[in-house]
C-alpha cells in the first residue's frame, strides 16, 4: 500500500495528466496567446519598453479569470456531478490528497500556460529577461490565479454544479471589478496597478505607466495581502469542510 506522500504524488500526476488530456486545452492555450498578442497590437516594432506589460493586462486578467473559473469548476464542482469524486473516494486515498492534488495541479498547469505565453512579451517588446517588471507582472498574474482559484473552489463546494459554479464565480470576480472602484484593491486591475506602479517607482523612477499618482506602501501591501488572505481563508475553510464534514451522495 502507498504511503500518503506517495499516493499524493500519484494523484497529483494523474490530475496533471487529466488537465493535459482536456479536449479544450488547445483552446485555452490559444486564448492565452491571443490575450498576450492583443495587448501588443499597438506595437509596431521592437520597443525595448516594459510599459506594454502594463497596458494590455486587463485582457489577460479577463481571459485568465474565465479560464480559471471554468477549469476549477470543471475539476471540483464537475467531479460531483459526473461521479468522479465518488469513484476517487473508493480508492485508498485520503480526502486531503484529492483536494490538494487537484488544486496544485490546476494552479501549476494554468500558471505554466500563462507564464510561458506571457513570456512572448520578452520577444515582442524586446524586453530583457532581467527586466524586473516582467517578474512583477507574473507575480500579479499568480496572485489573480490564486484569488480566482479560491473563489471558484468555494463556489464549487456550495453549488456542486459545474455550470452554476462557472457563472457565479465569474460574475462574482468581475462583479467586484465593476461594482467597486476600479483602482481598489478588491479589483484585479486595481491590484495590478498598485503592485506594478509601486515597483515601477522603485526600479524605473520617473516613468509612470501604471499610475500618475504615487502608489503608497499601504496600497501595495494591501494589493498583495487581499488576494493572499482571501485565498488562504477561503481555501482553508473549504479544505476543512471537504476533508472533515462533506458528504458525497
Amino acid at each position, binding site marked *: 500500500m502507498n504511503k500518503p506522500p506517495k499516493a499524493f504524488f500519484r494523484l497529483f500526476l494523474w490530475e496533471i495528466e487529466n488537465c493535459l*488530456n482536456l479536449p479544450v486545452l488547445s483552446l485555452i492555450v490559444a486564448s492565452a496567446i491571443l490575450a498576450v498578442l492583443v495587448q501588443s497590437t499597438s506595437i509596431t516594432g521592437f520597443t525595448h519598453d516594459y510599459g506594454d506589460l502594463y497596458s494590455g493586462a486587463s485582457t489577460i486578467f479577463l481571459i485568465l479569470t474565465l479560464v480559471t473559473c471554468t477549469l476549477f469548476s470543471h475539476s471540483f464542482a464537475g467531479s460531483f456531478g459526473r461521479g468522479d469524486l465518488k*469513484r476517487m*473516494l473508493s480508492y*485508498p486515498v485520503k480526502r486531503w490528497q484529492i483536494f490538494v492534488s487537484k488544486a496544485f495541479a490546476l494552479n501549476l498547469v494554468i500558471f505554466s500556460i500563462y507564464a510561458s505565453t506571457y513570456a512572448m512579451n520578452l520577444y515582442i517588446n524586446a524586453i530583457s529577461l532581467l527586466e524586473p517588471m516582467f517578474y512583477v507582472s507574473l507575480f500579479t498574474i499568480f496572485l489573480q490565479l490564486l484569488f480566482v482559484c479560491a473563489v471558484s473552489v468555494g463556489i464549487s463546494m456550495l453549488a456542486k454544479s459545474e455550470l452554476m459554479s462557472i457563472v457565479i464565480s465569474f460574475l462574482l470576480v468581475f462583479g467586484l471589478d465593476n461594482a467597486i472602484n476600479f483602482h481598489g484593491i478588491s479589483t484585479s486591475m486595481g491590484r495590478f496597478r498598485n503592485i506594478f506602479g509601486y515597483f515601477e517607482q522603485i526600479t524605473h523612477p520617473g516613468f509612470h505607466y501604471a499610475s500618475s499618482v504615487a502608489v503608497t506602501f499601504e496600497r501595495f501591501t494591501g494589493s498583495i495581502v487581499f488576494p493572499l488572505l482571501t485565498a488562504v481563508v477561503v481555501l482553508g475553510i473549504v479544505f476543512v469542510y471537504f476533508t472533515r464534514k462533506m458528504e458525497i*451522495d
Partner: protein
Amino acid sequence: MPALNELTIQIPNGISGFVGKNGSGKTTTIGVLLGLIKANKGQASMFGLDCWKNSFEIRQKLGVMHETNAYPGNFSARRFLTHVAKLYGITQIDQTITQLLKDVDLTHAQDKPIKTFSAGMFKRLGLAQALIGNPELAILDEPTANIDPLGRITILEKIKDMHTKHGTSFLISTHILSDLEKICNYLIIIDQGKTIDQGNINTLTEKYSANIYKIEVSNPPQFITALQKTDTIDKVWVENDKIFCKVNNPEMFCAEIPKIASELKLQLKGFQQTLNSLEEIYSQTVGEKR
C-alpha cells in the same frame, strides 16, 4: 424519515445480493459503508472499523464499482487502470493489468479511449478497476444495469470467475433479480432503510415458498372478498392481477379454492404454490410491507 434505520447487514464470504425498491436505501448504504455519507445517528461499521472515521482503512480492503460510468474518457483503459494500480501501490503493474484486462475481456480495447466504449465495456472496465487491488470485498452497484442480455451474462460470468479464481467476496446491488439468482448464495432484502430479511438463498427460498399460493381468477376483487372470510389465510395481496395468499392451513385452503370459485361462478385460470424464485421472495417480503 431517515434514509437508513437500524440497518444491520451481514456479508458472508461468497457472492451476496443486495436488493430493494428504488429509494429503499441501497446506494445510501453503500455510501455509508464507503465513508461518503455520515450516519447522523448511531454508528456504521465495517471490518470492525467506523465507516466515517476509518474510511481510508476500510477502502484499502474494498473494491467498488459505482453505478455511474465516471471514467476519464480521454484515457485508454490500460492507462486508467495503471493510475488506479499505482494508487493501490501495486508493484507488478503491467502484469496485473494485462491479466485483469484478459479476465474482463477488454484486451482488444485496452488502447482505445474509454469514451468510445459501449455500455457493456464500461461495466467490465468498472469491474476491472474494482478488482485491481485484489480486495477482500468488492461492492458492485448495479453492475448489469442498462446492458443487453448477452452483456449481462458476460458480466455475471466474470463475477463468478473472479470469485472462484481469487476468492473475492462480492456484494451486488441490483434490481435484476434473475441475475442474482444465477450467481448469488446470500441475499439481503431492504426496504425503507430497514433490513426486511437476509440469509442464505436456499434458506430464504424455503422460508418464503412454504405456504404461498398464487391464484388466477376472472374477478380477483370478488374472489379476495370471499377468501378473506375463510380462516385458512394469513395475508392476501395482488401482483399483476394475480392473487397471492400466505396460508396457515394448506390442505384446507387447497380444498376451499375450487369451492369458492365454483360458488362465485368465477373461472379459476390457475392455482399453484409459488415458484422458488428470488422475484417471488422479493415481492412477498417487500409486498408485505406495502
